[in-house]
């Protein structure tokens, strides 16, 4: 005996209808997506889950580690001998520079003192092992085995023996995430080693990079080496970054399309050096003015208001 307008009670209780549940979970996921992509507010959740899952993650990395160890064990002796010879040759080649470096550094400090210039920051680094590349196919990141427990912080530059690899973007207690130079979100200020032309190099995906916003007649040639300019206060100046492989000067576009490939073994595993943070840059001149002279700013705005 049902009252008009009321459905009889259901026989089986199964919670809300599937479509209602779908809408609930989809909207929850969309909220998460927006919160992470747009506002970047979910880092603490990520930190907590990643820390809890760290032993699992190391355990699952074991089969891959074992396979690569086994491959290294089977490496032929001739390959190893050749490699060792190559290292000796390179050491001798650079011995001239290495032996005199301390002397040159001392001389540099004295000369800079004479010229009354700001002393160059000494560079320190921490060796880290690249554990694996993340599975996310949409970005290019690797995980290294040093984290906040080892004094790593977000923003530090990561280099290998040839050049810059990328930058630390996320730090967990025992590991950290490095965004590679070839990622589409990564940009690095560089200068052309040959003529000092400054530019911004951005990742273009697929293992290449692009020198952006250069006029069609810009003075860049195929084979030019790009080094960091150090203007950003993150990378030390003079680190090799990339090599120009293609310059497309199409006059229909206002900018030249300049394709580069990274010099360092980006996207290859091995050891890397995490450089210590650079000392903070002096504030920009206009910031300085505002910071030092709030009264003047106040009067200026007042005058404007009048």
């Amino acid at each position, binding site marked *: 005996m049902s009252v008009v307008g009321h459905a009889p009670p259901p026989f089986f209780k*199964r919670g809300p209808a*599937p479509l209602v*549940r*779908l809408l609930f*979970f*989809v909207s*929850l*996921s*969309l*909220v*998460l*997506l927006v*919160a*992470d*992509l747009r506002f970047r507010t*979910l880092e603490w*959740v*990520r930190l907590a*889950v*990643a820390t809890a*899952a760290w032993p*699992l*993650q190391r*355990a*699952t*990395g074991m*089969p*891959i580690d074992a396979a690569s160890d086994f491959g290294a064990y089977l490496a032929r002796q001739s390959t190893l001998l050749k490699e060792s010879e190559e290292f000796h040759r390179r050491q001798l080649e650079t011995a001239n520079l290495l032996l005199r470096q301390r002397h040159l550094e001392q001389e540099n400090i004295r000369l800079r003192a004479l010229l009354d210039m700001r002393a160059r920051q000494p560079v320190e680094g921490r060796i880290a092992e690249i*554990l*694996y*590349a*993340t*599975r*996310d*196919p*949409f*970005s290019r*990141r690797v*995980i290294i085995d040093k984290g906040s427990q080892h004094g790593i912080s977000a923003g530090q530059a990561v280099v290998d023996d040839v050049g810059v690899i990328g930058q630390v973007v*996320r730090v967990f207690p025992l590991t950290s*995430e490095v965004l590679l130079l070839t*990622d*589409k*979100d990564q940009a690095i200020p560089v200068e052309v080693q040959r003529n000092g032309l400054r530019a911004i190099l951005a990742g273009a*995906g*697929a293992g290449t990079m692009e020198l952006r916003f250069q006029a069609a007649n810009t003075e860049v040639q195929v084979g030019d080496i790009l080094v960091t300019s150090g203007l950003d206060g993150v990378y030390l100046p003079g680190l090799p970054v990339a090599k120009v492989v293609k310059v497309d000067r199409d006059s229909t576009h206002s900018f030249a399309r300049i394709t580069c490939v990274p010099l360092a073994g980006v996207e290859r595993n091995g050891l890397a050096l995490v450089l210590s943070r650079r000392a903070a840059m002096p504030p920009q001149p206009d910031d300085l003015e505002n910071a030092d002279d709030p009264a003047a700013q106040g009067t200026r705005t007042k005058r404007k208001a009048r």
Partner: protein
Amino acid sequence: MQPTHSSRRILRPVSNWFILLTLFFALLLNLIPFGRLPGIPDWVALVLAFWCVHQPLKVGMAAGFVLGLAMDVADASVMGQHALAYVLLAFAAAGLSRRILWFPLAQQALHVLPMFLAMQLVMLLTRMLGGAEFPGLLWFLSSFTATLFWYPATYVLLTPQFQPEDKDVNRPI
């Protein structure tokens, strides 16, 4: 419950612990760092779709959401990317469960393939809207390999339910 609706075999009831264990094991398999190697199936999606088809009352969108969040953290991708895709996958698999189970295994796999492809398409759309790079067409290969695993996965995941009800230790043969 039968393996397929057209089968005459009656299965033992499923154990909740076994479902949890298989989902957890799939998550572990997904954590193995293969990097950008194409064609590695998404084990969590496979096992989740399987249980949504076979046990739609026990495994559903909530499980998909939680597993998706775990995958988002493990993959270092955007929070909510896998969650959204797995929720949609679970909805489709549970909704089509009554239909899919009437078919033999090969045709079941053909039903599951478009679901996996749609799941990857959802992930692609969410990330491309966020300004990420296109991962290349080879990335879609993992849906096809996951579909190939539908046949073995069915036997592996139904093994405990295939066991006989009571063991007769004194049986002559």
